[in-house]
């Protein structure tokens, strides 16, 4: 068990925690935070896993940097959307609206 592998396994755990949050929590900001936790988990796996052959690998580090910027962009957009949604509807979750139910016909 090397240190990078420990990081990768921790990343796997973070992925599990984030997934639970995304699936279970209903508050939109919490969902967004859960997405970020899961994202961190994925990045940890990405950086931790390829290091088992001695020396850090710069390629996944660059990839993760790109991934972080993409995640930041998505998070910021989501926050703007959530704020505007809250402003207009006064709701903090996507649940509890008849229009979103499947079936449509009454």
């Amino acid at each position: 068990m090397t240190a990078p592998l420990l990081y990768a396994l921790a990343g796997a755990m973070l992925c599990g925690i984030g997934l639970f949050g995304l699936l279970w929590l209903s508050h939109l900001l919490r969902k967004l935070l859960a997405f970020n936790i899961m994202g961190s988990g994925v990045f940890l796996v990405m950086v931790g896993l390829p290091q088992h052959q001695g020396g850090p690998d710069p390629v996944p580090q660059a990839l993760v940097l790109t991934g972080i910027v993409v995640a930041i962009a998505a998070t910021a957009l989501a926050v703007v959307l959530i704020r505007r949604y809250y402003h207009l509807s006064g709701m903090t979750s996507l649940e509890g609206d008849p229009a979103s139910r499947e079936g449509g016909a009454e």
Partner: protein
Amino acid sequence: MIRTVRALAVAVACLAFTGLLGASIWTIAGNSTPVNLPQLLSENLERSGVEHPVTAVLLNFRSYDTLLEIGVLVIAGIAGISMAKTASLEDPEVRTSDSLLYALQRWFVPLMLVLAGYLLWAGSDRPGGAFQAGAVLAATGVLMRLGGVPMEFLRPGLLLRIGLALGFTVFLLVAVASAIGGDAFLAYPPGMTKILIVVIESVLTLSIAMVLLALFVSAPVNDAEDPEEGSSS
């Protein structure tokens, strides 16, 4: 009761997922990879124009990723400011009159600007680069805005849009310049790699800071709405 059962089911599924993932990582870590990319990278590092391998990957070997990624950032900025309130700067609620913040600002703002400059410069041979510098620059802007500095350019006008697109435009022009000469898209002309990368990094820093700041500012909302399709009355 039903809620508890559902929570349990989701938790068990997530645990199973984690276990599966962990087992897979454990197995994969035992194998050796057939391609040794780090070695290939260090062999080609000299031709990349920068000394730091991560920067070399970001701005030379895999610069297409970076170009598209800046595109993603610009998209988020566009979508953000499309919801912005034009007059939000006059909103008195946004400005604080916190004297502590005001005092801190005088110390922090110059310091953070210097730090951003350092991070940008450091990117060529040690950890650092356009993204880190841009993030620090954006944080400086957030601090200034919270402290009540008006920053007129953040209105959703032409200036803001030019700022959003500047880094992306310069990157794109460099990318296409070599293609017009018959080379591949995104190839740097020989001998000019280093200077071009420095130019791109600098404008990217500005644009990244601008996008992040614009997204921070555009969070306040306006009341004007688009009527839904088909709901003309």
